[in-house]
């Protein structure tokens, strides 16, 4: 194993310890402090992946979040994470990583044929080629994706935990470089509560690799001093390994804190969450996110070995890795010269500095000249030669004064590393997310933050100030100002003197003219991850694209996991030139959250599964249902028994048995889940009159009434039985799913529209257990269970309620029925629910009492034509549409009444509730089936209705269905046709929706 590229000294790594890891199946090792990219570079690895479209070999370009090429899948199985940037992955013992691009392997990539065919794959190729036939896109896409190969989502459930924290602060600081650090100090010394968030392992930003002196100390010593003082303030919180992923309205910020990824799976305590999502409300925000170096755009600029100048410096000074034996710098500004000096310090042979400008800065020029490095002014790297392992040599050329043409070719220079610097793009992402519009600064050749929309300011490099002195000055000022703005008296910070090179102006050159080596297949890449080239942008302009947002979507510029952090500005500048506009007129694409990808686990946090995503509600009798082997159905948050299969029974057999028992013997249903609202007050009846369509003035204590609640638009919203318990005291039941909505609805009317009504509402759903005993033996069973009430017809009429004892338990007994049978609903304190249920089961043993679930309940009520709100109604159905005019009072106002006489609700051809009997009695229509007028009609076939409920009825020996049919009430006896998915056509006869006991003899027996 070669560690030839590791320097003998220097860097922020711990050489005393070795960390072993695997990359693409091979063993490697590194040191604490390394990133995966640094450790691999140290061992001579140059190719990190294949590009997305042309499958060109690619190396690492950057050293941080901007990295477009070195994407890796880290970890195995359930804990695997795709598309991480190797430049940000910290090493831990046993880490495994593999490249996400390059199928079937990095060395042998069948997709590389695209590279040879690249003239046939221009921008928009996939759109242009695979659009027809439209239906085939899905098939093409599968193969395109496989060939393109992004990472794989783990297929196993994530065993890690994630959580969320909420925080408030006076001053929020994004970025722990020099500007952010001194801003934090200023705010902290002013007394403010400060939250400092930094993306990296340790604070310092550019000071982690820049050889500068601050106030007579090294940059790193200055960082240590500042950090120690910051940590001494109780109101200062520092988050490392944390990314500000989003900046939302009113200074609401979201931070993704990675807590355990750097130590590897299974190493942290089981109580430590893997990642944390911070939701932060800040009074003031200081953005100090720095700047991202821009590549230069020339032929072959994607060869492994071509790296950002700042990345070259980072690998040398921070990680003690020389990325090659020999190097050249290609730059249009002074900052690139530092890479030359750093390469010299790493013992590399630096063969040239190629500068686009005529007049480089005097101080940097002097520094590299002192190292005897030749500087080629007004020159460019016009193209490169590279082999399978990467860069071999560059072609040097003299540039015309305007930068449009190559004047002369000046030969080739062998080198393994080309450090490029096309200037710096301030990281305006957070400013842009906050609502600001970046503006183009032509002197600095970059977009800088525009006016602030929220309480934020950008300082240092992310504000376009590229000297260390300016970073410190602005940071200190902003930190103190932010504290003052958030109500603190202000403090004192000494801005230290710094030693750094004086800077000469940048000279932008957005695209280098083609060189002599340029030929077929040689391209100037803008977006390395998506293989978007300068030619693609110009093609888009020729084809009529004008908006940068459209060009982005057409060429995929900035579409990757890096979101164009490197290439977007170059791309829009080339578009601007092609359109004859300024970069300011073209503008940037929108910077959206998230800044870097965020895992789904972090977004979900703890709100997972049945415990916390959506709570599960169970009745007091639930354990009995489980013991009895019930299948459950979710109704809202409730678990309701669906049916109770006996040995070997399928659902159909169980439901048939339960339905026959309820009609011929006795059944019992757990009805506890129905919503229950206790209504009290002298105006309760007046309020019920406004809520329900029927009249409530004359309901006496001990009597029950069924009601429909409408929206103000006249459409049915909920239904249920309400009982008068005493004068001015009612108990309303609602549908299981509608309980919360109905209570909110009632409260809103009382609080906002009729505050003068003296009515008080209390939800008592959970306080009562309710069971319905139904069937010819219901009365007998209740007597056997020791009910002390006279249950006989005259003493206990239908739709009445009495309080008494059942099996020694205080109970409210109501004679109401949703099954159409003789039925008693017994309500007891929920703590007594299970005891009563068991007593009823014992009392009913001689009558083979049969517990029945929601499916049988549905069949029984459908036999009687009772609707279920939300199944037979859908928010567009009035009581009149159900043929229930009788329930709508003509004498009083109620919510929704006026809407029942609007032209639309009054028209004759509305969908109305009818029954359907299929001509073949064994054929059960699917619910939702569309109904039409005839077997065969010219298309488009008019849909005249749909099936809302459909069952096989054991009691009737045939199928039954309820349907909503246009003008259905006037079509009794007519035939209608259901066209089914399998192509069959099922004829059915329209009938009254009541299939069983239309005279209601049984409920009253």
């Amino acid at each position, binding site marked *: 194993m070669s560690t030839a590229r590791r320097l003998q000294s220097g860097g922020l790594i711990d050489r005393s310890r070795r960390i072993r890891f695997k990359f693409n199946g091979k063993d490697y090792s590194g040191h604490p402090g390394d990133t995966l990219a640094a450790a691999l570079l140290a061992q001579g690895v140059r190719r990190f992946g294949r590009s997305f479209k042309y499958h060109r070999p690619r190396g690492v370009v950057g050293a941080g979040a901007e990295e477009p090429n070195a994407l890796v899948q880290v970890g195995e199985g359930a804990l695997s994470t795709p598309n991480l940037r190797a430049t940000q992955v910290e090493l831990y013992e046993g880490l495994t990583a593999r490249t996400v691009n390059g199928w079937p392997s990095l060395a042998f990539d069948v997709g590389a044929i695209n590279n040879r065919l690249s003239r046939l794959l221009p921008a928009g190729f996939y759109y242009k080629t695979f659009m027809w036939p439209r239906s085939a896109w899905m098939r093409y896409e599968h193969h395109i994706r496989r060939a393109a190969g992004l990472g794989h989502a783990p297929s196993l459930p994530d065993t890690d935990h994630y959580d969320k924290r909420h925080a408030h602060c006076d001053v929020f600081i994004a970025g722990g470089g020099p500007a952010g650090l001194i801003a934090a100090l200023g705010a902290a010394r002013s007394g403010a509560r400060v939250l400092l968030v930094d993306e990296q392992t340790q604070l310092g930003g550019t000071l982690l690799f820049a050889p500068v002196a601050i106030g007579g100390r090294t940059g790193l010593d200055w960082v240590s001093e500042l950090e120690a003082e910051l940590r001494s303030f109780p109101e200062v919180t520092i988050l490392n390994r944390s990314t500000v992923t989003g900046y939302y309205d009113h200074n609401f910020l979201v931070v993704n804190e990675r807590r355990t990824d750097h130590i590897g799976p299974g190493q942290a305590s089981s109580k430590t969450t893997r990642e944390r999502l911070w939701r932060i409300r*800040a*009074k003031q925000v200081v953005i100090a996110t720095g700047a991202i170096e821009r590549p230069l755009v020339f032929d072959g600029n994607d060869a492994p070995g071509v790296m950002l100048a700042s990345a070259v410096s980072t690998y040398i000074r921070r990680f003690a890795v020389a990325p090659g034996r020999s190097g050249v710098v290609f730059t249009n500004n002074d900052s690139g010269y530092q890479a030359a000096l750093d390469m010299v310090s790493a013992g590399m042979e630096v063969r040239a500095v190629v500068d686009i400008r005529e007049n480089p800065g005097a101080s940097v020029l002097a520094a590299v000249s002192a190292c005897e490095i030749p500087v080629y002014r007004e020159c460019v790297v016009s193209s490169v030669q590279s082999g399978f392992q990467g860069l071999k040599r560059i072609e040097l050329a003299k540039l015309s004064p305007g930068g449009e043409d190559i004047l002369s070719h000046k030969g080739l220079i062998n080198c393994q590393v080309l450090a490029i610097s096309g200037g710096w793009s301030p990281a305006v992402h957070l400013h842009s997310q906050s609502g600001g519009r970046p503006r183009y600064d032509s002197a600095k050749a970059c977009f800088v933050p525009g006016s602030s929309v929220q*309480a934020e300011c950008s300082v240092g490099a992310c504000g376009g100030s590229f000297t260390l002195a300016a970073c410190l000055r602005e940071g200190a000022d902003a930190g103190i100002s932010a504290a003052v*703005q958030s109500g603190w008296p202000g403090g004192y910070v000494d*801005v230290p003197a710094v030693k750094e090179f004086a800077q000469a102006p940048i000279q932008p050159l957005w695209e280098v003219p083609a060189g002599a080596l340029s030929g077929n297949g040689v391209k100037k890449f803008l977006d390395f991850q998506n293989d978007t080239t300068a030619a693609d942008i110009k093609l888009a302009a020729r084809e009529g694209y004008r908006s940068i947002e459209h060009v982005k979507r057409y060429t995929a510029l900035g579409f990757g996991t890096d979101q164009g952090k490197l290439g977007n500005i170059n791309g829009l500048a080339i578009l601007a030139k092609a359109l004859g506009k300024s970069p300011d007129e073209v503008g940037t694409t929108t910077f959206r959250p998230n800044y870097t990808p965020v895992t789904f686990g972090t977004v979900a946090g703890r709100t997972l599964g049945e415990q916390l995503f959506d709570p599960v509600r169970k009745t007091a009798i639930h354990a009995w249902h489980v013991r009895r082997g019930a299948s459950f159905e979710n109704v809202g948050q409730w678990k309701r028994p669906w049916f109770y299969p006996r040995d070997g029974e399928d659902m159909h057999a169980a439901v048939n048995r339960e339905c026959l028992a309820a009609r011929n013997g006795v059944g019992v249903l757990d009805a506890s889940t129905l919503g229950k609202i206790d209504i009290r007050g002298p105006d309760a009846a007046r309020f019920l009159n406004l809520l329900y369509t029927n009249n409530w003035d004359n309901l006496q204590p001990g009597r029950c009434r069924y009601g429909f609640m409408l929206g103000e638009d006249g459409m049915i919203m909920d239904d249920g039985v309400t009982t008068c318990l005493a004068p001015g005291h009612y108990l309303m039941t609602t549908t299981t799913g509608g309980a919360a909505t109905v209570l*909110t609805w009632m409260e809103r009317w009382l609080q906002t*529209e009729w505050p003068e009504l003296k009515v008080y509402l209390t939800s008592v759903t959970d306080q009562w257990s309710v069971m319905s005993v139904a069937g010819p033996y219901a009365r007998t069973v209740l007597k056997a269970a020791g009910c002390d009430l006279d249950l006989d017809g005259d003493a206990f009429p239908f739709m009445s309620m009495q309080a008494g004892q059942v099996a020694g338990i205080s109970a409210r007994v109501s004679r109401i029925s949703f099954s159409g049978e003789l039925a008693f609903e017994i309500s007891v304190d929920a703590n007594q629910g299970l005891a009563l249920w068991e007593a009823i089961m014992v009392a009913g043993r001689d009558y083979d009492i049969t517990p029945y679930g929601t499916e049988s309940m549905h069949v029984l009520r459908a036999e009687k034509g009772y609707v279920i709100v939300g199944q037979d109604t859908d928010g567009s159905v009035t009581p009149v549409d159900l043929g229930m005019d009788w329930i709508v009072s003509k004498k009083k106002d109620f919510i929704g009444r006026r809407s029942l006489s609007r032209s639309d609700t009054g028209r004759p051809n509305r969908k109305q509730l009818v029954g359907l009997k299929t001509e073949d009695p064994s054929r059960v229509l699917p619910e939702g089936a569309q109904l039409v007028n005839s077997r065969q009609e010219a298309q488009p076939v008019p849909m005249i209705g749909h099936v809302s409920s459909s069952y096989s009825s054991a009691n009737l020996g045939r199928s039954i269905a309820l349907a909503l049919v246009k003008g259905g009430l006037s079509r009794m006896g007519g035939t209608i046709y259901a066209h089914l998915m399998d192509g069959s056509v099922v004829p059915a006869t329209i009938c009254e929706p009541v299939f069983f006991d239309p005279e209601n003899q049984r409920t009253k027996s």
Partner: protein
Amino acid sequence: MNMAQPESRTSAHLREAQMLRIECPWCGERDQEEFQYGGEAHIVRPESPDTLTDEQWADYLFNRANTKGIHAEQWCHAAGCRRWFNVLRDTVSYAILTVYRPGEQPPGNIE
């Protein structure tokens, strides 16, 4: 020495924070996550709906101002005291300018 002076570009950009937090008239300031939006406020249910034309009723039922700017609207402290109240909110900046109880009129000095 660097005492806060409003001369620089950075400090000129600092403004008073507006946080999406809502002052419940009964419970005090809470995060907006606890609240439920209820649409335009001060839409009074007609006294005698029967006397209205279809157009007048439809106006009450369906038509809303869709204001750009300061909008009076109802909110409910759904995860708190469950009470409704009124809010003046700027629909452009989302800034909440004031809150007041049902039955009260918005303060006149808000512009």
